[in-house]
Protein backbone atom coordinates (compact mmCIF):
# COMPACT_ATOMS: atom_id res chain seq x y z
CA UNK A 1 0.00 0.00 0.00
CA UNK A 2 1.61 3.22 -1.16
CA UNK A 3 0.10 6.52 -0.06
CA UNK A 4 1.25 9.71 -1.77
CA UNK A 5 0.58 12.92 0.17
CA UNK A 6 0.58 16.33 -1.51
CA UNK A 7 2.31 19.30 0.05
CA UNK A 8 1.60 22.90 -0.97
CA UNK A 9 3.06 26.01 0.64
CA UNK A 10 0.87 26.28 3.76
CA UNK A 11 -0.10 22.60 4.02
CA UNK A 12 0.24 21.58 7.67
CA UNK A 13 -1.35 18.12 8.04
CA UNK A 14 1.00 16.17 5.78
CA UNK A 15 3.07 14.71 8.63
CA UNK A 16 0.00 13.74 10.71
CA UNK A 17 -1.41 12.06 7.61
CA UNK A 18 1.89 10.32 6.95
CA UNK A 19 2.07 9.10 10.57
CA UNK A 20 -1.53 7.81 10.45
CA UNK A 21 -1.06 5.80 7.26
CA UNK A 22 2.35 4.45 8.34
CA UNK A 23 0.85 3.27 11.64
CA UNK A 24 -1.61 1.28 9.53
CA UNK A 25 1.26 -0.28 7.58
CA UNK A 26 1.42 1.83 4.43
CA UNK A 27 4.54 3.20 2.83
CA UNK A 28 4.22 6.92 2.19
CA UNK A 29 5.78 9.69 0.17
CA UNK A 30 5.25 13.41 0.49
CA UNK A 31 5.24 15.14 -2.90
CA UNK A 32 5.92 18.88 -3.24
CA UNK A 33 3.38 20.77 -5.35
CA UNK A 34 5.98 21.74 -7.98
CA UNK A 35 6.32 18.14 -9.07
CA UNK A 36 4.66 17.46 -12.41
CA UNK A 37 4.28 13.77 -11.69
CA UNK A 38 3.15 11.55 -8.87
CA UNK A 39 4.84 8.22 -8.03
CA UNK A 40 3.69 5.52 -10.44
CA UNK A 41 3.10 3.00 -7.64
CA UNK A 42 0.62 5.26 -5.82
CA UNK A 43 -2.44 3.39 -4.50
CA UNK A 44 -3.97 6.40 -2.77
CA UNK A 45 -3.33 10.09 -3.25
CA UNK A 46 -4.09 12.33 -0.27
CA UNK A 47 -4.53 16.09 -0.51
CA UNK A 48 -3.75 16.93 3.11
CA UNK A 49 -5.18 19.69 5.26
CA UNK A 50 -3.76 23.11 6.06
CA UNK A 51 -3.91 26.55 4.51
CA UNK A 52 -2.46 26.21 1.02
CA UNK A 53 -1.32 29.62 -0.25
CA UNK A 54 -2.62 31.20 2.96
CA UNK A 55 -6.21 30.68 1.76
CA UNK A 56 -5.65 33.79 -0.39
CA UNK A 57 -8.54 34.71 -2.68
CA UNK A 58 -10.49 31.58 -1.56
CA UNK A 59 -9.45 28.38 0.20
CA UNK A 60 -7.90 26.10 -2.39
CA UNK A 61 -8.29 28.61 -5.24
CA UNK A 62 -4.60 29.05 -5.98
CA UNK A 63 -3.50 25.50 -5.18
CA UNK A 64 -5.61 24.16 -8.02
CA UNK A 65 -3.14 25.69 -10.50
CA UNK A 66 -0.06 24.09 -8.93
CA UNK A 67 1.97 21.99 -11.38
CA UNK A 68 1.11 18.74 -9.56
CA UNK A 69 -2.63 19.23 -10.01
CA UNK A 70 -2.54 18.18 -13.68
CA UNK A 71 -1.12 14.83 -12.58
CA UNK A 72 -3.74 14.60 -9.83
CA UNK A 73 -6.56 15.20 -12.29
CA UNK A 74 -5.15 12.63 -14.71
CA UNK A 75 -4.74 10.12 -11.86
CA UNK A 76 -8.34 10.69 -10.69
CA UNK A 77 -9.77 10.52 -14.21
CA UNK A 78 -7.94 7.24 -14.65
CA UNK A 79 -9.79 5.78 -11.66
CA UNK A 80 -7.09 6.35 -9.01
CA UNK A 81 -8.28 6.87 -5.42
CA UNK A 82 -7.98 10.44 -4.17
CA UNK A 83 -8.79 11.63 -0.64
CA UNK A 84 -9.01 15.33 0.21
CA UNK A 85 -9.10 16.21 3.89
CA UNK A 86 -10.15 19.70 5.04
CA UNK A 87 -8.15 22.09 2.84
CA UNK A 88 -7.70 19.10 0.53
CA UNK A 89 -11.48 18.91 0.14
CA UNK A 90 -11.52 22.64 -0.68
CA UNK A 91 -8.77 22.13 -3.28
CA UNK A 92 -10.67 19.24 -4.92
CA UNK A 93 -13.90 21.28 -5.20
CA UNK A 94 -11.99 24.27 -6.61
CA UNK A 95 -10.30 21.96 -9.11
CA UNK A 96 -13.67 20.60 -10.19
CA UNK A 97 -12.87 17.03 -9.11
CA UNK A 98 -15.73 17.20 -6.61
CA UNK A 99 -19.01 19.14 -6.98
CA UNK A 100 -20.04 22.12 -4.84
CA UNK A 101 -17.98 24.64 -2.90
CA UNK A 102 -16.95 25.43 0.68
CA UNK A 103 -17.97 28.78 2.11
CA UNK A 104 -17.11 30.64 5.32
CA UNK A 105 -18.79 29.02 8.37
CA UNK A 106 -22.17 30.63 9.06
CA UNK A 107 -21.01 31.66 12.55
CA UNK A 108 -17.91 33.27 10.96
CA UNK A 109 -15.88 31.48 13.65
CA UNK A 110 -13.01 29.09 13.13
CA UNK A 111 -14.34 25.85 14.67
CA UNK A 112 -11.91 23.39 16.23
CA UNK A 113 -13.43 20.51 18.21
CA UNK A 114 -14.43 16.87 18.11
CA UNK A 115 -17.71 16.34 16.27
CA UNK A 116 -19.99 13.38 15.70
CA UNK A 117 -20.66 12.30 12.14
CA UNK A 118 -23.18 9.83 10.77
CA UNK A 119 -22.23 7.46 7.97
CA UNK A 120 -24.74 8.04 5.16
CA UNK A 121 -23.40 5.84 2.36
CA UNK A 122 -20.85 3.08 2.82
CA UNK A 123 -21.02 1.64 -0.70
CA UNK A 124 -17.54 2.97 -1.44
CA UNK A 125 -13.96 2.01 -0.60
CA UNK A 126 -13.54 4.83 1.95
CA UNK A 127 -16.40 3.92 4.31
CA UNK A 128 -16.99 0.26 3.50
CA UNK A 129 -15.64 -0.83 6.90
CA UNK A 130 -18.32 1.23 8.68
CA UNK A 131 -22.08 0.57 8.90
CA UNK A 132 -24.59 3.00 7.42
CA UNK A 133 -26.16 5.18 10.14
CA UNK A 134 -23.31 4.44 12.55
CA UNK A 135 -21.85 7.48 14.34
CA UNK A 136 -18.15 8.27 14.49
CA UNK A 137 -16.33 10.96 16.44
CA UNK A 138 -13.75 12.89 14.42
CA UNK A 139 -12.14 16.31 14.97
CA UNK A 140 -13.02 19.27 12.79
CA UNK A 141 -10.84 22.37 12.44
CA UNK A 142 -11.92 24.84 9.79
CA UNK A 143 -13.04 28.35 8.94
CA UNK A 144 -14.45 27.55 5.51
CA UNK A 145 -16.32 24.27 5.99
CA UNK A 146 -19.80 25.40 5.03
CA UNK A 147 -20.56 23.09 2.12
CA UNK A 148 -22.76 24.58 -0.59
CA UNK A 149 -24.35 22.96 -3.59
CA UNK A 150 -27.44 24.06 -5.52
CA UNK A 151 -30.73 22.11 -5.43
CA UNK A 152 -30.03 20.19 -8.67
CA UNK A 153 -26.55 19.27 -7.50
CA UNK A 154 -27.87 18.08 -4.15
CA UNK A 155 -30.46 15.90 -5.85
CA UNK A 156 -27.71 14.32 -7.93
CA UNK A 157 -25.57 13.67 -4.84
CA UNK A 158 -28.51 11.98 -3.13
CA UNK A 159 -29.50 9.89 -6.14
CA UNK A 160 -25.98 8.57 -6.65
CA UNK A 161 -25.26 7.90 -2.97
CA UNK A 162 -22.46 10.49 -3.05
CA UNK A 163 -23.12 11.92 0.40
CA UNK A 164 -20.65 10.18 2.71
CA UNK A 165 -21.04 11.82 6.11
CA UNK A 166 -23.29 14.31 7.89
CA UNK A 167 -22.66 16.30 11.08
CA UNK A 168 -24.83 14.96 13.90
CA UNK A 169 -24.96 14.56 17.66
CA UNK A 170 -23.90 11.32 19.37
CA UNK A 171 -27.32 9.79 18.60
CA UNK A 172 -27.10 10.47 14.91
CA UNK A 173 -29.54 13.39 15.00
CA UNK A 174 -28.56 16.25 12.67
CA UNK A 175 -26.42 18.88 14.40
CA UNK A 176 -24.94 21.38 12.00
CA UNK A 177 -21.82 23.25 13.22
CA UNK A 178 -21.10 25.40 10.17
CA UNK A 179 -24.20 25.87 8.01
CA UNK A 180 -23.45 23.17 5.43
CA UNK A 181 -26.30 22.26 3.08
CA UNK A 182 -28.06 19.21 4.58
CA UNK A 183 -25.35 19.17 7.28
CA UNK A 184 -22.99 17.53 4.76
CA UNK A 185 -19.47 16.82 6.08
CA UNK A 186 -18.10 14.73 3.21
CA UNK A 187 -18.93 13.63 -0.32
CA UNK A 188 -17.48 11.63 -3.20
CA UNK A 189 -17.64 11.93 -6.97
CA UNK A 190 -20.07 9.92 -9.07
CA UNK A 191 -17.43 7.31 -9.92
CA UNK A 192 -16.67 6.89 -6.18
CA UNK A 193 -12.90 7.23 -6.43
CA UNK A 194 -12.52 10.87 -5.32
CA UNK A 195 -13.43 11.60 -1.70
CA UNK A 196 -13.53 14.84 0.24
CA UNK A 197 -14.40 15.66 3.83
CA UNK A 198 -13.84 18.56 6.23
CA UNK A 199 -13.26 16.43 9.39
CA UNK A 200 -9.78 15.01 10.06
CA UNK A 201 -9.76 11.19 10.32
CA UNK A 202 -5.93 11.27 10.53
CA UNK A 203 -6.31 13.06 13.89
CA UNK A 204 -8.54 10.29 15.28
CA UNK A 205 -6.14 7.36 15.28
CA UNK A 206 -5.49 6.76 18.99
CA UNK A 207 -8.07 6.59 21.79
CA UNK A 208 -5.61 8.22 24.19
CA UNK A 209 -5.85 11.32 21.96
CA UNK A 210 -9.65 11.37 22.08
CA UNK A 211 -10.83 8.98 19.37
CA UNK A 212 -9.66 6.15 17.17
CA UNK A 213 -12.66 6.27 14.83
CA UNK A 214 -10.45 7.44 11.98
CA UNK A 215 -8.73 4.04 11.82
CA UNK A 216 -11.68 2.23 10.22
CA UNK A 217 -12.03 5.04 7.68
CA UNK A 218 -8.43 5.08 6.52
CA UNK A 219 -8.26 1.28 6.60
CA UNK A 220 -10.92 1.17 3.89
CA UNK A 221 -8.24 2.06 1.35
CA UNK A 222 -6.12 -0.98 2.26
CA UNK A 223 -6.70 -4.07 0.17
Amino acid at each position, binding site marked *: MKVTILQFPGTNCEYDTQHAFEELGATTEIVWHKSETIPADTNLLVVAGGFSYGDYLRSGAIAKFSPVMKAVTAYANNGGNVLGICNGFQVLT*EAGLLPG*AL*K*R*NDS*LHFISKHHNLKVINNDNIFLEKLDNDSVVNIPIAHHDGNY*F*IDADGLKELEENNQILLKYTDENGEIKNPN*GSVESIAGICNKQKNVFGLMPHPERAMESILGSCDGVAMLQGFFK
Partner: protein
Amino acid sequence: MIKAIVNVSLKAGVLDSQGKAVHHALDSLHFNGVNDVRVGKQIILKLDTDNKETAMSDVTKMCEELLANTVIEDYEIELV
Protein backbone atom coordinates in the same frame (compact mmCIF):
# COMPACT_ATOMS: atom_id res chain seq x y z
CA MET B 1 -3.46 51.01 -20.25
CA ILE B 2 -6.85 49.88 -19.08
CA LYS B 3 -7.86 49.43 -15.47
CA ALA B 4 -10.33 46.64 -14.80
CA ILE B 5 -12.33 46.68 -11.62
CA VAL B 6 -13.77 43.27 -10.76
CA ASN B 7 -16.42 42.98 -8.08
CA VAL B 8 -17.02 39.46 -6.76
CA SER B 9 -19.92 38.67 -4.46
CA LEU B 10 -21.94 35.67 -3.36
CA LYS B 11 -24.82 34.80 -5.66
CA ALA B 12 -28.34 35.78 -4.71
CA GLY B 13 -29.72 32.81 -2.82
CA VAL B 14 -26.37 31.89 -1.28
CA LEU B 15 -26.43 32.99 2.37
CA ASP B 16 -23.91 35.78 2.98
CA SER B 17 -22.97 35.30 6.65
CA GLN B 18 -20.55 38.22 6.64
CA GLY B 19 -23.19 40.51 5.17
CA LYS B 20 -25.60 39.37 7.86
CA ALA B 21 -23.09 40.06 10.63
CA VAL B 22 -22.36 43.54 9.23
CA HIS B 23 -26.09 44.22 8.96
CA HIS B 24 -26.50 43.22 12.59
CA ALA B 25 -23.62 45.49 13.62
CA LEU B 26 -25.16 48.42 11.72
CA ASP B 27 -28.44 47.79 13.55
CA SER B 28 -26.58 47.92 16.88
CA LEU B 29 -25.21 51.32 15.83
CA HIS B 30 -28.81 52.48 15.19
CA PHE B 31 -28.46 52.70 11.42
CA ASN B 32 -31.99 51.43 11.03
CA GLY B 33 -32.68 52.21 7.39
CA VAL B 34 -30.59 49.34 5.97
CA ASN B 35 -32.58 46.59 4.25
CA ASP B 36 -29.80 44.26 3.18
CA VAL B 37 -26.00 44.04 3.29
CA ARG B 38 -23.84 41.95 0.96
CA VAL B 39 -20.09 41.74 1.48
CA GLY B 40 -17.93 41.08 -1.56
CA LYS B 41 -14.42 41.72 -2.72
CA GLN B 42 -12.92 44.02 -5.29
CA ILE B 43 -9.97 43.06 -7.45
CA ILE B 44 -8.27 45.83 -9.45
CA LEU B 45 -6.20 44.88 -12.48
CA LYS B 46 -3.99 47.10 -14.59
CA LEU B 47 -3.80 45.70 -18.10
CA ASP B 48 -1.24 46.33 -20.84
CA THR B 49 -3.80 46.55 -23.58
CA ASP B 50 -5.73 49.62 -24.75
CA ASN B 51 -8.33 47.52 -26.50
CA LYS B 52 -11.51 47.31 -24.43
CA GLU B 53 -12.78 44.22 -26.22
CA THR B 54 -9.56 42.29 -25.57
CA ALA B 55 -9.54 43.52 -21.98
CA MET B 56 -13.13 42.41 -21.39
CA SER B 57 -12.59 38.99 -22.90
CA ASP B 58 -9.33 38.45 -20.97
CA VAL B 59 -10.77 39.55 -17.64
CA THR B 60 -13.90 37.43 -18.18
CA LYS B 61 -11.63 34.41 -18.65
CA MET B 62 -9.70 35.33 -15.49
CA CYS B 63 -12.96 35.53 -13.55
CA GLU B 64 -14.20 32.19 -14.83
CA GLU B 65 -10.90 30.40 -14.14
CA LEU B 66 -9.67 32.01 -10.94
CA LEU B 67 -11.05 35.29 -9.64
CA ALA B 68 -14.55 33.97 -8.89
CA ASN B 69 -15.86 30.56 -7.95
CA THR B 70 -18.95 30.53 -10.14
CA VAL B 71 -20.54 27.76 -8.06
CA ILE B 72 -21.23 30.33 -5.34
CA GLU B 73 -20.13 33.72 -6.67
CA ASP B 74 -21.12 36.26 -9.33
CA TYR B 75 -18.72 38.80 -10.80
CA GLU B 76 -19.04 42.20 -12.46
CA ILE B 77 -16.33 43.78 -14.57
CA GLU B 78 -15.92 47.50 -15.06
CA LEU B 79 -13.27 48.89 -17.42
CA VAL B 80 -11.88 52.35 -16.69
